[in-house]
């Protein structure tokens, strides 16, 4: 078992009478070997066992997007996957994207555009934006709406989120264009 989280109040269910499966994953560049209870969800593994609490669990059925992480280069729900299913995968959580100090570029844009109020859904959006940047999606592409449709914000900040995301994608396009010159 990986190092249990020391956060008080988080109780890790690790009943030895339940069947376990071994798991080897890379999380934010670190190799993790663990033995997990078969029915443990990836979201609970990341939050409760690895202490990576940026991702949030809300709907628990893959609809809302708050638990989105990046698995093997693509955004995916952590709540609709068993931890055991991700053996061999490379997982990135928001903790893996944080700037050493302060906010990273996309986080800054979210702040400037007022793209969050309560912030509960924000880590999920940021992971999707990260994947969109990796895939060099153009800010005017219809794919932008497809990707963003995978997230729900109940503070109804969609318009501001939309503009922050478009700016983030636009800066990336500019950056790669200036590199080519």
């Amino acid at each position, binding site marked *: 078992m990986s190092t249990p989280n020391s956060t008080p109040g988080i109780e890790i*269910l690790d009943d030895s009478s*339940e*069947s376990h*499966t071994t798991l080897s994953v890379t999380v934010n560049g670190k190799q993790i070997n663990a033995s997990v*209870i*078969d*029915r*443990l*969800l990836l979201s*609970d593994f990341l939050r409760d066992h690895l202490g990576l609490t940026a991702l949030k669990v809300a709907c*628990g*059925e*893959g609809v809302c*997007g708050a638990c*989105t992480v990046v*698995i093997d280069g*693509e*955004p*995916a*729900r952590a*709540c*609709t*996957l*068993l931890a*055991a*299913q991700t*053996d*061999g995968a490379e997982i990135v959580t928001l903790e893996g994207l944080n700037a050493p100090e302060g906010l990273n570029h996309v986080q800054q844009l979210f702040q400037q555009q007022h793209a969050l109020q309560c912030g509960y859904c924000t880590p999920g959006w940021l992971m*999707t934006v990260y994947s969109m940047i990796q895939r060099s999606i153009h800010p005017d592409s219809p*794919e932008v*709406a*497809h*990707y963003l*449709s*995978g997230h729900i914000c109940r503070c109804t900040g969609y318009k501001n989120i939309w503009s922050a995301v478009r700016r983030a994608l636009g800066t990336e396009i500019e950056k790669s264009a200036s590199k080519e010159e």
Partner: protein
Amino acid sequence: MKPAKFKYIRAETVEHAVDLLDGTDAGVRILAGGQSLVPALSARTLRASMLLDIMHCPGLNDISQNSGTMTIGAACRQSRIERDSVILQNIPLLSEALGWVAMPQVRSRGTVVGCLAQANPGGEVPVVALALDAEFDLLSRGGIQQRMPAREVYAIEAGTRLPSKSVIVSASFRARAVGEGWGFSEVQLRQGHFALVCCAATMIVDENGFIKLATIAIGGLTANPYRADRAEKTLMGESANDDLVLRDAAQIAATERPWPARTDLHATSAFRSKTAVPAVARALRDARLRCSRHTGASYEHA
């Protein structure tokens, strides 16, 4: 954690999975991408005693091109198939329909074959399978292989006729014929939601603009999708340019359903029946528009 207890097994080969499936335990389920199964287990609307993960089995990640068909392995994820250039060239209808399946964050993990096995009434992939005369390759205990056409798999009102204790190894779709156009239309409550109704259609037009072949499959209207055979027949030999002909065929297609129209929380049977007509007409018009100029005919959007 929310699901009730089960045992998880990472199958090493498909044969290994089939062997474990064939035991006396009725609660064994195949796990592929798990994008529907895991939430159902979490909500405890489904229970399992054992999950057999087939995603690591060798060979299931293959896409292969045979004479006139494209075969997609059971572990191929939707996002990969959606973006694959060979698929786009040979079964563009599938690429387009996959864009309607849930959201990119779900398609990154869900599989094409998983959709076929699950047969969700609002699912898009079974509709494409029917339109493209797909065939499923199954493996049962003792190495028994079986090939089952999509038409037979979905020939009951709900669920599938897939034999129990077998694994779908792959599904083969008919590749696009020279000049064949395709269209996929869907009505949904919001992006990423299941289809209230959807339609997959293809068309081939001869050099004089007459319809040589038309296929229509409808989903969402009834619990399982169906092929609109009567509507397809009425289109044969008709002028593809005539919007009224397409509209009449759409009317027939929506009416000839083999089972009653579906009512659920999101739409009544009356709404679905009515919406299906323009949905089919739209798919047919798109198919006509994409009939290639190889046939000598060309069409512009009205």
